[in-house]
């Protein structure tokens, strides 16, 4: 792979990571969803680029799946859910944006420190790709922790899965079956989440998941 191929792959991976930070920064649900769609577009571009350079046609399938489902169908479905539920359009956060971003940067550093010594024999591209993917996964987890709103948590979950796909496309010889399974699992999870939203909403008139805590015996008295 030439110099420019390496740079492009690296840059597209970094764009996916950057959109993870954009997700952490957003406060409005619609902006959150469009940031997630943008991340998926970058992911699709990264997959297509890797398919072109690794000469691996099945990566184009991954790119098309990412573009179709994650950049179009899921965001549109989420927007429809928001509209139908008529919920509050701002994201309730368990922690301020500033501390969240600071933790995010520490997580990226952690991912780099973890991946680089572990993959000493692999090629430079794989190592950086894995470091970027692990960062995206960790940021997705962080997003699920810091959001109280169920939709924010779903988006965190989806962006976590974007990180997994980013790792899969960066490694040579990852079979398509794995990616298909991951994508399928996410589709199922998304449908379950959809039902889940309506159930929470019906019971509590809100998507704030702290109302659920009373059922685990750790609820606050309000």
């Amino acid at each position, binding site marked *: 792979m030439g110099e420019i191929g390496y*740079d492009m792959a*690296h840059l597209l*991976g*970094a764009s996916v990571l950057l959109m993870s*930070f954009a997700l952490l920064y957003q406060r409005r649900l619609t902006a959150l969803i469009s940031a997630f769609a943008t991340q998926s577009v970058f992911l699709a571009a990264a997959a297509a680029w890797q398919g072109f350079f690794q000469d691996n046609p099945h990566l184009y399938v991954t790119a098309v799946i990412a573009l179709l489902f994650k950049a179009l169908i899921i965001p549109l479905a989420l927007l429809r859910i928001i509209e139908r539920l008529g919920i509050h359009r701002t994201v309730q956060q368990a922690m301020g944006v*500033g501390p969240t*971003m600071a933790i995010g*940067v520490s997580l990226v550093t952690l991912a780099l420190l973890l991946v*680089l010594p572990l993959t000493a024999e692999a090629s430079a591209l794989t190592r950086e790709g894995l470091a970027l993917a692990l960062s995206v996964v960790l940021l997705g987890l962080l997003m699920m922790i810091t959001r109280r709103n169920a939709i924010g948590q779903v988006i965190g979950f989806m962006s976590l899965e974007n990180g997994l796909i980013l790792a899969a496309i960066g490694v040579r010889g990852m079979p398509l079956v794995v990616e298909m399974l991951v994508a399928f699992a996410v589709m199922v999870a998304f449908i379950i989440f959809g039902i889940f939203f309506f159930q929470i909403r019906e019971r509590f008139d809100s998507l704030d998941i702290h109302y659920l805590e009373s059922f685990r015996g750790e609820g606050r008295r309000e």
Partner: protein
Amino acid sequence: MSGQVSEAALAVLFQCVQMLVVLALAPLLTGVVRGIKARLQGRRGPPVLQPYRALLRLTRKEAVVAENASWLFRATPYIVFTMLWLAAGLVPTFTTALALAPVADLIALVALLTTARFFTGLAAMDIGTAFGGLGASREAMISALAEPAMLAVIFTLAILLQTTSLAAIVDGTLGQGVGLRVSLALGLISLIMVAIAEAGRIPVDNPATHLELTMVHEAMVLEYSGRHLALMEAAGMLRLLLFMALILCVFVPWGIAQPGDGPTAWAIGLGSFLGKLLAAAVALALFETTVAKMRVFRVGEFLGGALLLGLLAAIFLFVSTAL
């Protein structure tokens, strides 16, 4: 020997041309941005040359100064204008063969900008009105956050190219090419965010408003009139040009003439600079019409984001050099 002398003379000549170019272009840039914004918003807008007329009219008017104003208040417009003109003259726009190239350091640039801001804030408080103090305190908050972010970007560039001199950065990028670096991309976004905050553009400050809740820069220059106001306004226009030229020269330096190039290269340099500036003006106008002004208390998060991106750029730089 004579070659060296003529080279030096040429560098001095270029420096003078550069100073005149930035001074002449700054109001035009502001006018163009305003014009494009007006078009995008469906208004016809003032003619693009309006800023020149406004500045000329202001210089002809009498400067009214409050009775309790000290010398600081009267000296500040001159200091601020000089600092910004000098800083704008340091950024290579069409050639790197500038007489001031050896001192055109990114850190010196930050120092010049900070001095200008410091005096603006002092003068705003000197007059003793509530607005001045309010603007100064907001400006201090913004600059205290913007400066570390800008320095983080500068350090990334310095590690990547082994220099903080602007001319050397341009020569280095043009000479060997550094490729598409992740750090550079992150640094670019961070620097754009800082530039928006420092030049007082829309998500952070609205240059066209006189509304107490939102204004930052305007609150500080509220007490100025006549030629003092003209200087402050011109300094603001120079600041916008300076940040655009800085981003253009660091991240898209193609077209800039280098030492030893002939007249064709100078012409190409000037032409490409004008083209890039126009593109930047369109991009800024588009951006400003699509986003809304954010609350003053959210500026901290915005610039904190810029600082984190700058830090991330430095982290990735270390990773890619360690590989």
